[in-house]
């Protein structure tokens, strides 16, 4: 009893004092401070990440230097030489394939949901799309191994080869898993996120834009083009988000790409390797310091590759935007 009698007024006083102080300082100032702190923690986080990665890969950087990036050999057992060029190329190419397949589909889904479908149906579909985005990547990987790979190998790739076999990228042996399969799985994985973001972006386009176009006698398709153009920065944001996921994707890609360390595959059906995949594959059983350091170095390179393609994507986007805006003005 005694304690509670003492403690209770203490708490009350504290509360009242705190609330008074809040009023005095104004909530806005506090909120500004808090959000500034939270925002700057991103810099801190990135800085710490780079620091840790550089520290971990220091041995590898000292040993191989820039040769790590242009090296084409990964030999943990005999010569203990590590080079990441094939991994960098594999990551870039599979991500590019994923975007090539994924962007048109996502754009279509986004437009259908926001512009063309009845509202209720659109809601139901977008709920399902968002559900797909929550499926863990290992599930996509398993599905890739047991459903997609047999299907592609038996029912798609042979026909692709008979039709386009004269082009080198469609020749060569078909394993099922490989570069194209990896790209397809990545595309399937990025479509939910990208199309959900695109739909939201299109929905934010004010109706006055659409009404103005229709008033000018534009067709539905012409109106839709205006909507895309109005929402382009959001569309680009969605694509970059998808690219980010494709570049960093680990579990699913390693399960379907075939994990073959080579500079360039003989065809789209051949196996390859990515940066994230080799880290997931080999880090647990890496047995000596230089080996572990080389794998962390791959992580560092992956971070920079992601950074560079993000910057490049932004630059390309800005240039095309300026270009299309110029046309629109004419």
């Amino acid at each position, binding site marked *: 009893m005694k304690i*509670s009698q003492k*403690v*209770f007024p203490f*708490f*009350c006083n504290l*509360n009242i004092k705190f609330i008074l102080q809040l009023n005095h300082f104004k909530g806005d100032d506090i909120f500004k401070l808090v959000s500034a702190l939270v925002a700057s923690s991103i810099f801190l986080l990135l800085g710490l990440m780079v620091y840790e990665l550089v520290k971990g890969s220091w041995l590898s950087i000292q040993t191989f230097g820039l040769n790590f990036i242009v090296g084409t*050999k*990964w*030999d*943990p*057992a*005999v010569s203990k030489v590590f080079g990441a060029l094939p991994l960098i190329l594999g990551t870039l190419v599979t991500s590019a394939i994923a975007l090539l397949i994924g962007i048109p589909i996502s754009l279509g889904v986004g437009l259908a949901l926001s512009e063309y479908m009845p509202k209720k149906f659109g809601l139901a579909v977008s709920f399902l799309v968002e559900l797909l985005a929550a499926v863990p990547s290992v599930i996509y990987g398993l599905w890739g*191994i*047991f459903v997609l*790979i*047999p299907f592609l*190998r038996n029912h798609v790739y042979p026909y692709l080869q008979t039709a386009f076999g004269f082009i080198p990228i469609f020749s060569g*042996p078909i*394993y*099922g*898993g*490989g570069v194209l399969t990896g790209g397809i799985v990545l595309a399937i994985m990025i479509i939910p996120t990208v199309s959900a973001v695109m739909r939201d972006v299109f929905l934010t386009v004010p109706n006055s834009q659409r009404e103005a176009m229709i008033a000018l006698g534009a067709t539905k398709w012409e109106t839709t083009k205006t909507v895309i153009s109005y929402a382009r920065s959001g569309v680009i944001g969605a694509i970059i988000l998808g690219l980010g996921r494709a570049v960093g994707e680990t579990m699913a890609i*390693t*399960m379907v790409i*075939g*994990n*073959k*360390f080579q500079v360039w595959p003989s065809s789209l059906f051949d*196996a390859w390797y990515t940066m994230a*995949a080799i880290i*997931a*594959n*080999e*880090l*647990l*059983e*890496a*047995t*000596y310091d230089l080996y572990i350091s080389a794998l962390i170095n791959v992580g560092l390179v992956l971070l920079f590759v992601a950074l560079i393609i993000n910057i490049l994507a932004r630059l390309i986007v800005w240039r095309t935007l300026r270009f299309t805006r110029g046309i629109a003005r004419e």
Partner: protein
Amino acid sequence: MKTTYKVAITIAIIALVVASAFAYQYLENSATAQKVTLNGAGSTFIFPLVDKWAAEYHKIKPNVQINYQGIGSGGGIQQHIEKTVYFAGTDAPLTAAQAAKAPNTLHIPITIGGVVVIYNLPGIGKGLKFTGEILAEIYLGKITKWNDARLAAINPGISLPDQPITVVHRSDGSGTTFIWTSFLSDFSPEWKETVGRGTSVNWPTGIGGKGSDGVTALVQQTPYSIGYVEFTYAMVNNLTYGYVQNAAGEFIEPSIESIAKAAQYAAVTLPRGDASWSNVSIVDSLANNTQAHGAYPITSFSYIIVYKELNVLPNMNEATAKALVDFLWWAVHDGQNYAPGLYYVPLPSNVVANDEQTIRMITFNGQQLHK
């Protein structure tokens, strides 16, 4: 006035909840004062066996909880070096460099693993014969067709197809790959010089599957492919496997008996538990043993490693140390009875004798724990 009343009630409720939580914890602690948790981590290969042991041992000693995480041998060794686990499981003995970081480590062979050749040849069942040289040539990309003359010569009566061989290997670092590449190194000088042995190597050819299930899926889905997986995995999943020639010249079917026999031959020259084990390899010792009749050549021990003096571990006390030693003693004796049911190979008696000696070396503050 009304608000103060509400606040008072809220605080009273919170206080009650906190108090009951403390009380619960106090009661729980006093009720299970003797409760001991043995933390271990490492090899995924031995995980199903240790998991079974944990359940069975808990029935005998309800106060002992065994918590083993299958994080991979490399991770297990790392945690052993950092002293964050009481025991670690590994498929390969410590290398000299690792042993230097974890002095006074004891090696206890706990079970035996084999690596089997699996293949997908429509119309051809188990029992295709292979030699170390031929397997090395296939994995080097030098033998590229199934109807190669060397393969046909040791498989009379089987019509091998004129089809290219799709080579499948593990893409993730693994003890299975270590055993496999050790075997290939022993039988092919070229393999030894260009690819070598390791948990991951620079594969000259083939595609990589993640984990045993990844390799199996690739082999089962790809006609005319070849791969390798652990013996237990091949048995449980009923895979089509081949026979492999040993140094005595016999083609041996992988089985619990032939793998146990291999360990038995190798155990003749096992070092003391506290000596260096970095060179212990059943594969290597069998590669030169032309008298090892009936022994399956691609065989290896899996180990549990512990510190000889347990007081080097933080949070270790005498009761926990004693419980750990009792469990290890049980695992190498009664625990072995659970092995065949899970397609693990029980230790032959001469290995058990070696383990007994090793477990007797374990001390806490200088006191021998098993007498």
